[in-house]
């Protein structure tokens, strides 16, 4: 079940930068050992993709995007948005029954843990760099890459879809604070 009561109630546009909160989507945290062949084959079968092994990498299918968070940790994000009425995800149940219950790994629903900001514009990384130690020009970081770092002392996960379109995952309780910070930083770019 997704929580539709958002902490963010506005969207903002400056010259060529816009920020808005994304409609809630399902997010599942998946953990398991890559050296365990049963886990890898089962997860691959259910998701229809190979779990990304390299730092920063993601893989995408029609319905789901899988992001690398650590050597044994992934974040699965649904690409579909749902309405308030049909607010249920079978993927979590399938993963839970096949992976969690058989002790192959762990499956946790973190849908309401994260709020997603969608940032669009040509100078996103200039704005983010104001409060972030990560080098966005690093050769490891490009389109469809994901990085976990800190932004203005807040833990964030940054998913660069293209150079001008970024999804930023932040804990729900920090969302309001970070929103105000980005809004303020974007004013002077």
């Amino acid at each position, binding site marked *: 079940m997704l929580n539709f009561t958002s902490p963010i109630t506005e969207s903002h546009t400056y010259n060529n930068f816009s920020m808005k909160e994304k409609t809630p989507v399902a997010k599942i945290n998946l953990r398991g050992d890559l050296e365990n062949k049963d886990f890898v084959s089962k997860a691959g079968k259910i998701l229809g993709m190979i779990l990304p092994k390299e*730092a*920063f990498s993601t893989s995408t299918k029609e319905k789901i995007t899988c992001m690398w*968070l*650590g*050597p044994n*940790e992934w974040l699965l994000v649904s690409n579909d948005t749902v309405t308030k009425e049909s607010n249920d995800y079978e993927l979590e149940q399938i993963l839970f029954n096949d992976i969690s219950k058989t002790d192959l790994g762990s499956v946790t629903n973190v849908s309401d843990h994260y709020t997603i900001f969608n940032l669009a514009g040509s100078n996103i990384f200039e704005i983010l760099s104001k409060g972030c*130690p*990560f080098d966005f020009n*690093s050769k*490891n970081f490009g389109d469809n890459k994901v*990085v*976990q*770092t*800190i932004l203005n002392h807040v*833990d964030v996960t940054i998913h660069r879809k293209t150079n001008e379109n970024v999804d930023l995952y932040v804990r729900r309780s920090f969302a309001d604070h970070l929103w105000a910070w980005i809004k303020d930083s974007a004013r002077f770019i």
Partner: protein
Amino acid sequence: MFIIKCPYCGERDHSEFNYGGEAHLVRPKQPTELSDDQWAEYLFMKKNIKGLQYERWNHSHGCRRWFNAARDTSNDKIHSVYKIGEKPNK
């Protein structure tokens, strides 16, 4: 800037990391059989040397994994990083 190379994520700024103290300390097998002095020795008395020290670090704002680093405490130069459970190459 002080850059640390996480064995999983590559080179990242030190502000993403947390320090975990001296590495390769072995926990006594039977803490109940130790005297208070011996237990305190294990818990609190760390080497605190000037020079090359083996330490534990946690990439707490990144991949959240623990690893070991060989750091020179006098100039913060990291000589090598290696995963937990591995031996340092000297």
